């Protein structure tokens, strides 16, 4: 595949690794905040190939993992309504809420359907005017423009039976919270390449300056990640702290203006709870008041939800990079992908699931 295979070239990756080994002179801690990076690192075994001085910490960049239990409970409750066709990306279907997941809701009669694009959900609303089509709009800045476009399209077509259950989160406030934490150990960041494709990298410049951390928007193939790590490492070794763009073929400083305009038209920024972390200021997107008719949360009142979460689960510490997944006492014992205690074990992008899947040799 063009724009893929070149970035998986073992020879080039090997040379970048050699260069990383040559560059590092002392221990550094770099966080890849994006779950897509975590996944690629584990799948390719990059962490095994890096010099021991370079420690990678896996960040909370998995929208599935940080979606609050309450939101999943709300989704399950809305999906259970007989008039509703509940649509979702595949990711959210297995994630457990307090008592049920969307898959379990489906098995007890809810009409839950998987879609690839939010526009498929709009098409369902068009085909089924007698039903209420709800789309579970999760994701970071990468996904918000598509979900926003779906809402605007429903509005343009005059579809009153379409709504979003919106649970969008934003990356820069999470980085700010992590860097502000007294327990922070992270000295450099790989920034999420596809979030930056939409938002550009300018909003990371103040973070790099204020906290004196290199931030490198990075692509998702092995060569991209190694090149991104090398760029961050060079800055750390040289005492430089700026945003440097590894993913120039897709990311510009300004990002995608058209996408940003639609996000602003549909959503507004709010404080928001991240599962395992807590409420982060101005870190979420909710549907604007003038579009309240397309907001499933307002359209379908859900009676008081009582959230239950596992007491053993330490996914919060994992998401904050305070412990590695296998540092949790429940890892691989009480908590496995078959019986997950927390979302980091459910989502394929979750650090715990990625560890369990690719990295269990020492526990097996």
């Amino acid at each position, binding site marked *: 595949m063009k724009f893929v295979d070149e970035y998986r070239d*073992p020879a080039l990756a090997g040379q970048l690794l050699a260069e990383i080994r040559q560059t590092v002179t002392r221990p550094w801690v770099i966080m890849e905040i994006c779950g897509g990076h975590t996944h690629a690192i584990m799948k390719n075994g990059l962490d095994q190939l890096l010099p021991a001085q370079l420690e990678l910490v896996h960040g909370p960049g998995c929208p599935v993992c940080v979606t609050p239990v309450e939101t999943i409970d709300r989704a399950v409750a809305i999906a259970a309504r007989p008039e509703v066709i509940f649509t979702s990306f595949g990711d959210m279907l297995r994630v457990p809420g307090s008592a049920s997941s969307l898959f379990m809701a489906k098995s007890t009669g809810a009409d839950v359907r998987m879609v690839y694009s939010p526009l498929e959900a709009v098409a369902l609303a068009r085909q089924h005017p007698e039903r209420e089509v709800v789309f579970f709009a999760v994701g970071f800045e990468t996904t918000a423009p598509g979900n926003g476009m779906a809402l605007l399209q429903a509005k343009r077509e005059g579809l009153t039976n379409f709504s979003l259950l919106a649970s969008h989160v934003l990356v820069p406030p999470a980085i700010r919270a992590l860097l502000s934490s007294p327990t922070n150990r992270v000295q450099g960041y790989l920034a999420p390449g596809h979030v930056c494709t939409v938002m550009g990298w300018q909003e990371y410049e103040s973070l790099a300056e204020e906290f004196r951390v290199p931030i490198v928007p990075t692509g998702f193939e092995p060569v991209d990640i190694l090149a991104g790590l090398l760029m961050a490492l060079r800055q750390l070794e040289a005492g430089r702290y700026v945003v440097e763009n590894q993913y120039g073929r897709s990311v510009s400083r300004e990002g995608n203006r058209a996408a940003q305009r639609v996000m602003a038209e549909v959503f507004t920024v709010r404080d928001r709870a991240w599962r395992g972390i807590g409420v982060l200021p101005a870190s979420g997107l909710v549907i604007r008041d003038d579009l309240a008719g397309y907001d499933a949360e307002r359209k379908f009142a859900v009676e008081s939800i009582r959230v239950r979460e596992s007491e053993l689960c330490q996914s919060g510490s994992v998401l904050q990079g305070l412990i590695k997944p296998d540092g949790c006492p429940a890892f691989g014992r009480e908590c496995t992908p078959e019986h997950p205690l927390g979302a980091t074990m459910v989502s394929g992008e979750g650090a715990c699931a990625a560890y369990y899947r690719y990295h269990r040799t020492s526990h097996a």
Partner: protein
Amino acid sequence: MHNLNPEDFSCPLPIMEYETIQLAHGSGGRLSAELVSRLFLPRFGNETLNRLEDQAVVDFSQGRLALTTDSFVVDPLFFPGGDIGDLAINGTVNDVCMSGATPLYLAAAFIIEEGLPLSILHRVLLSMENAVKGAGVQIVTGDTKVVNRGCCDKLFITTTGVGRVPEGVNISAAKLEAGDKVILSGTIADHGMAILTSREGLSFASRVQSDTAPLNGLVAEMLRVSPLIHAMRDPTRGGLATTLNEFAASSRVGIMLEEAAVPVRPEVRGACEVLGIDPMYVANEGKLVAVVPAQVADKIVAAMRSHPLGREAVIIGEVVADKQGLVVMRTTLGAQRIVDMPVGEQLPRIC
């Protein structure tokens, strides 16, 4: 035979009173008899089946019998590269022959939803007829039931197959030994991605072709050059990863794979990347994985490559004494990762 398009046939659909399946078609009365005599027998008729007894009585020489049964509930019924009909034949033929057995006879049971158009059933039967001929087996007994609308999804087919295991052949998932080679007959993930890309809601405009095929000819070719195959399976649901994990667990050994050696068609890989799906976990319906002693591996691969269904046969790894119960893959970059059992169905993901 894999490019069969029943619509190209001059339609031999017998003129029936009804255009759709009625509950009465499963009642055991006149309509049932008519369905069998006009739709089923012309497709599969043979001396044994034509007797229409409640059981098939067939000759069977002494030796060991391989017996398997499998239900087919695929949605959609027709997918690129195949349909539920050839899948139901090939799947059972393959399960029989993975023991090294020569598949001989099949039984087929149909559960049909009331209201299914007869033309759909007819298309499926045409394709089954073709698959039966392709695999060189006979359907010798069968059953049809019609259930109320909503009680099943259009059409379910269960096929049961028997075959004869040749002398000296003893194939089992528990027989892997350190040093054995792991051979794969061709590209993985074709069938599962054909089904997934046909699915409503996933926006695909072009589709991947299923690999559904009967593997008994290929197996016969392998056994001709060496009966020493230790383990063999067709990696269907759960994909190659699941089959190899089952092997490793049964034999208490490790399996070390080379990522770069596992073939995936470019368009299948493209579809997997789009949906975030790992081809190692995706179903195949015309591929086999065999574990054989190192000294006969090259000979068996060569024999496989001489057969149309094994042209891309390749050694993808080997059995190791350590890493007991684990399947480990050496990545293209030289690192190692565990290839675990899948938890559930592979779901398209956006993150």
